[in-house]
């Protein structure tokens, strides 16, 4: 049986779409069959991050409205044949789909995939309600900033109210140098406020920006963020993976001081 996971945050711009793309890619790399659904109707961008925007013919709304069959709308990934994307519509808005229709759509996908990842839009309105309607499990993405954490807290409350109790936390864009100086909240501080289990922390890594712009998710490569996402994928599958040390200092002075060690 497949697991339906919604990736959400409340606040925009904290890395939901990037996380979805990387977790999807990571799980596919680990041999699972995965479909990613972009539920952000009207602000389509998961396809861009995946580098698949030129292949879109039909979209989620077309499937819901019966303009095409599911098979026609699903886009196979360039790199992994066991990874698919159901893109959202760009010309419509969130009201084009109801939560009931989402449940029906996902039920249709369940027999064919191990994991169904839902990229949730920012906010708590219709788009959010659509995205969580069929979810078994949620991954909350937050950055170590008070605004993002406040919204994440609200989202967790709403998820619990909707009977989704398997909720894990991804702390994104962590900068260990700032944490050390006391200028940024640490992972512990974030967990302390949100009181949910951590499934992974992703460092603020310029490789992510490059990968996102090129449409090539980096989960599983040698970069720090790539490794972090791969670890998250393994933990989603139930493996016990220790938290990696994000404290890798690549600054000029660090290299210099290494020379003198």
């Amino acid at each position: 049986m497949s697991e339906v996971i919604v990736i959400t945050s409340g606040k925009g711009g904290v890395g939901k779409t990037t996380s979805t793309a990387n977790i999807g890619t990571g799980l596919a790399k680990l041999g699972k069959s995965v479909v990613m659904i972009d539920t952000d109707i009207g602000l389509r961008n998961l396809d861009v991050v995946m580098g698949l925007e030129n292949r879109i013919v039909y979209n989620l709304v077309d499937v819901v409205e019966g303009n095409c069959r599911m098979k026609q709308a699903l886009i196979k990934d360039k790199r992994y044949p066991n990874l698919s994307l159901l893109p959202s519509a760009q010309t419509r808005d969130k009201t084009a789909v109801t939560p009931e229709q989402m449940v029906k759509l996902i039920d249709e996908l369940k027999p064919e995939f191990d994991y169904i990842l839902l990229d949730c839009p920012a906010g708590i309105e219709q788009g959010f309600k659509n995205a969580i309607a069929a979810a078994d499990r949620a991954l909350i993405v937050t950055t170590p900033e008070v605004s993002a954490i406040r919204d994440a807290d609200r989202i967790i409350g709403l998820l619990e109210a909707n009977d989704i109790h398997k909720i894990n936390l991804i702390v994104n864009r962590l900068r260990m140098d700032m944490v050390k100086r006391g200028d940024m909240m640490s992972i512990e501080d974030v967990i302390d406020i949100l009181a949910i289990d951590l499934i992974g922390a992703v460092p603020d890594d310029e490789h992510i920006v490059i990968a996102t712009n090129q449409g090539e998710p980096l989960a599983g490569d040698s970069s720090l963020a790539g490794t972090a996402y791969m670890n998250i994928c393994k933990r989603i599958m139930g493996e016990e993976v220790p938290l990696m040390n994000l404290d890798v200092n690549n600054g000029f002075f660090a290299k210099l001081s290494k020379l003198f060690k």
Partner: protein
Amino acid sequence: MSNQSVIIKSNRYGLVVLLDDQPDWDTIKNEVAEKFRSSDKFFGDAQMALSFQGRKLSAEEEAELLKIIGESCRIQIVCVVEENTAEEQAMKAAVESRRPVEQHDLANLQDGRFYKGTLRSGQVLESETSIIILGDVNPGARVVSKGNIIVLGALKGNVFVGAAGNESAFVAALSMAPMQIRIGDVIARSSDGAARRKKKADETPKIAFVENGNIYIEPITKDVLNDINV
């Protein structure tokens, strides 16, 4: 009915009904009904003491008038004060002994309920009774109680105790870093930027209460607890 055989006067604590002793009893009754009916909007369902003056009334007559008043408007007559007593004093004593805490409120204040779990941003917990929270109250969450609130966790959101206007209510928390505390009609907010500046919230259990119209937050000690009334 244009004559002024019945006049209603009021002071802070109640009403004085001046009755002319000339007209016959039915006229008086009709006019009392009329007067109270027309002033129903003005008085609402206020609790008041009442006294009759200007006419000697038998016990039956007084009861009859009270019945008429009860039927004509929503005023709750707390008591009837005898003529010639120092009216306002007597009325004040009578009304204030009933307020500010009514009988059923008192029972509620003694009562409490438990809530287990973290209250998150956007969640509101309201209760007629006191509340004990086994968990945190996060920023953006709100807890409202007519009684007291005790948080066995970190209080970082908004709390409102003594919501019926009871300033003897209190808030206690293991970690006290609220955004806002309101006790009765007194409001205190956290100092600007305090929550952000402080790395870790103070871990001493604290209690917040009102004294001389100000909210004080103090560590929970025997001395402080001795001064708390429940």
